[in-house]
């Protein structure tokens, strides 16, 4: 077991980043023209970094599996982006954002990284506005804010329920400007299948052109992995169908440590599963918890009548409703952090109070908000003594203006009008806090291989607060990596172009080819999805919202057996040298089948509950997570060593110099 060096600069917390930027080596503009950087992934973290690096003068090659960088899954982020602007004058500051994020992450993230994130958050908003991102505004023309879970201030900037879309299109536009200048070459419908390490440094990748099937070599002086999270290991998640761990996993297999794989975020407000045919789950933004109240019937017989279709929720009187978040957590109410809200919903459903056919749903109700907004609107519109119908109509208009697209999305999927009947929601896999281990410079344990955004592990600890993913993606991409990568590349100014004609490239390409042929040659009987669904069931049932040692051990065995069966019995039609969507999926599922086992192993090793990792053996009498700071105040970083069961654990001790470790309470 080794001890990892996070390379956090010395000095007071608030000065570390400025000091570091002043001390790191720079590359002069003329030399930047001779340096190539590969960016894998073009979501917020990838597109923003690609644009900034190209502006600085580096030659950037971007790779994405989608047909356009604009389609990366950051596009689907709904609610907003945090920034410690304190425009509302409610006492916000970078320190408060830092503190909220550390606490929200249940004290399992690195202080210096989180402080840097909070510090840079204010720049992001300025930058995006300058780029023409149309954030929501107030009538006075200034930017509007709303609240998200786990905080007591309004610091979230938004563009209706499409904030991720607007931010990604901003970063995509910045990329387009550099593509137009010839500084970025964009490879779309390409998938990275291996990283090439030459003399101990990441010097390129092997990628497959998904249209022709051709396997290609690309060289560079550094490689950045910005390929997002691995939530699809659960099969059903709010991720896009193509979201995968492949780039990160292949890098892991070449020597990059994988940190905290078991830290996964289960988001409380998603549309419940409707049947076996289901291919993905849809999120209903956390912003809805600003106005929606979460409840289940207080009486078990009412819940049963609802499940049987004999009772409508609107017929249940106030006194017979259990607003369980408001009851259990009066200080934060419906705006508790995601992990807390998810577990509370599961607890009620497990106790028999679930409200849909499967018993796995709770209500998110806007009736009170509609009345409140309607009355206010009537008043400001000068309507005296409005009747009930007028208030409701006005209130629905206000709610539609705030959340219209989400309500429409819900109605299309569930076929019920959420203005009239409360929404049904249930937790679903949404985000992965774990990922490639990186130091303060965002460099993995392979020199020259960096990682940004959700693909790395660095900023959210054991639970991410809402509206912080967009913040991290853009902070990493626009403001952190472009500095820190220069420090590494300053040694490369005399290296010259990297050749793709080397033994390392030959070997990597041959291995990629052999892996793909192995999959094609199985010639079994089951489609890839058959295995992916099976894996998802194991993960959800045994590594999901609550975990215990017995089931985690079972999961390890079951995933290992499923992996063996997969290589024997998968059926992939078509060949290697052509477009083959099943082959693409098979490669991704093969990696999920390895990651899933490491995930369970990591969850088994961590004998405590923290954030999204809830071990049934470790809880308080009230059923809250029970952390063990004495024994588990560290980052688990796994070194690849053949099979997942042989992965070797390294630890990075988490040092808290500025924040006192407390039991997280939202009561």
């Amino acid at each position: 077991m080794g001890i990892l060096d996070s390379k956090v600069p010395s000095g007071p917390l608030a000065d570390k980043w400025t000091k570091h930027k002043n001390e790191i080596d720079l590359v002069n503009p003329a030399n930047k023209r001779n340096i190539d950087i590969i960016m894998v992934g073009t979501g917020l973290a990838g597109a923003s970094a690609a644009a900034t690096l190209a502006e600085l003068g580096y030659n950037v090659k971007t790779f994405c599996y989608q047909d356009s960088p604009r389609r990366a899954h950051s596009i689907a982020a709904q609610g907003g982006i945090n920034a410690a602007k304190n425009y509302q004058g409610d006492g916000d500051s970078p320190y408060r954002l830092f503190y909220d994020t550390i606490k929200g992450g249940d004290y399992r993230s690195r202080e210096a990284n989180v402080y840097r994130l909070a510090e840079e958050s204010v720049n992001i908003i300025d930058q995006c506005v300058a780029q023409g991102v149309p954030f929501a505004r107030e009538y006075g023309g200034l930017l509007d804010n709303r609240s998200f879970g786990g905080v007591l201030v309004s610091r979230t900037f938004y563009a209706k329920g499409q904030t991720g879309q607007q931010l990604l299109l901003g970063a995509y536009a910045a990329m387009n400007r550099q593509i137009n200048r010839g500084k970025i070459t964009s490879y779309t419908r390409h998938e990275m299948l291996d990283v090439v390490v030459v003399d101990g440094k990441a010097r390129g990748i092997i990628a497959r052109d998904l249209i022709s099937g051709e396997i290609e070599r690309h060289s560079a002086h550094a490689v950045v992995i910005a390929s997002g999270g691995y939530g699809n290991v659960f099969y059903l998640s709010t991720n896009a169908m193509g979201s995968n761990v492949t780039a990160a996993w292949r890098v892991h297999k070449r020597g990059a440590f994988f940190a905290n794989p078991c830290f996964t975020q289960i988001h409380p407000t998603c549309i419940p599963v409707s049947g076996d045919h289901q291919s993905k789950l849809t999120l209903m933004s956390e912003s809805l918890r600003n106005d929606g109240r979460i409840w289940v019937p207080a009486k078990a017989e009412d819940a049963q009548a609802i499940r049987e279709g004999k009772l409508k929720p609107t017929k249940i009187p106030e006194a017979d409703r259990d607003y369980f978040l408001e009851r259990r957590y009066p200080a934060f109410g419906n705006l508790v952090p995601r992990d807390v809200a998810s577990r509370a919903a599961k607890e009620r459903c497990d106790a028999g109070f679930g409200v849909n056919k499967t018993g796995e749903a709770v209500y998110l109700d806007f009736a009170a908000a509609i009345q409140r907004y309607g009355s206010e609107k009537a008043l400001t519109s000068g309507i005296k003594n409005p009747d009930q119908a007028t208030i409701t109509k006005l209130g629905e208009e206000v709610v539609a203006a705030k959340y219209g697209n989400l309500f429409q999305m819900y109605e299309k999927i569930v076929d019920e009008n959420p203005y009239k009947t409360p929404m049904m929601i249930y937790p679903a896999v949404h985000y992965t806090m774990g990922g490639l281990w990186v130091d303060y410079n965002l460099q993995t344990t392979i020199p020259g291989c960096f990682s940004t955004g959700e693909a790395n592990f660095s900023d959210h600890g054991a639970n991410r607060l809402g509206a912080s993913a967009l913040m991290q993606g853009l902070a990493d991409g626009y403001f952190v990596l472009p500095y820190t990568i220069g420090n590494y590349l300053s040694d490369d100014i005399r290296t010259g172009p990297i050749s793709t004609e080397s033994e390392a490239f030959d070997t990597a390409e041959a291995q990629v080819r052999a892996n793909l042929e192995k999959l094609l040659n199985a010639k079994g009987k089951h489609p890839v999805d058959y295995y992916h669904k099976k894996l998802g069931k194991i993960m959800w049932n045994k590594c999901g919202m609550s975990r215990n040692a017995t089931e985690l051990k079972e999961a390890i065995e079951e995933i290992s057996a499923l992996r063996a069966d997969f290589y024997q019995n998968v059926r992939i039609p078509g060949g290697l040298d052509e477009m083959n969507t099943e082959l693409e999926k098979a490669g991704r599922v093969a990696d999920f089948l390895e990651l899933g086992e490491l995930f369970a192993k990591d969850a088994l090793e961590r004998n405590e509950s923290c954030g999204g990792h809830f071990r049934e053996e470790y809880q308080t009498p009230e059923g809250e997570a029970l952390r063990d700071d004495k024994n588990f105040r560290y980052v688990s970083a796994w070194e690849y060593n053949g099979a997942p069961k042989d992965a070797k654990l390294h630890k990075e001790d988490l040092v808290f110099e500025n924040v006192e470790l407390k039991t997280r309470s939202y009561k």
Partner: protein
Amino acid sequence: MKLLLKIWRQKDGSSKGKLVDYPIDGIEGDMSFLEMLDVLNQELIEKGDEPVVFDHDCREGICGSCSLMINGEPHGPDRLVTTCQLHMRRFNDGDTIVIEPFRATAFPVLKDLMVDRTAFDRIQQAGGYISVNTSGNTVDANAIPIDKHHADESFEAASCIGCGACVAACKNASAMLFTAAKVSQFALLPQGKVEAIDRVQNMVRQMDLEGFGNCTNTGACEVECPKGISLENIARMNREYLMATAKG
């Protein structure tokens, strides 16, 4: 539900394609249209056939990957939804459904129902941005107040997902609505005014180079747009273009 699917199959860009019949059974109303195609593909693979290839990713109507002409309409019979948000409850037992790719000279077919829409990216690359560096050294975000009405209109234009339904719906395969949405987003903001002349000229030039047709104001694009992008944007782009030409 029992259905007859007539699906366009085409091996690659250089091969000829044709409609092939696929009867399918056991489809439920709660399934999305793409989940129905998933069911078909699982059956095809189990039989040893090649699955039908189509673009899709987020499956929540925002990434713009999914396309498909369904019974002659881009994204199918419902308004304001993408194909991935269309549910099978919209169809009846015994229906025949014709499924084709988006058709346009500028959108060549890659395989089956998948087309190449990179022409859209090239239009954006020609000028769909504000030329500020991303280093963060800019003015405070609240230094320039923007009228809420304009900010909201700019947002509405910016909510285009780049799916190409406008092009597929148009008898001339025109990309005016797509291009106009981006031009409008920036034209409505003070930050975008600085480069307005170059932007509209460069984007329109690229649009023509890609082989998209002319706009004859039939309004089919607006009707079929899953995000409800308004024709007003085309009018705005025409004004911008005219002014740019006048100013030279």
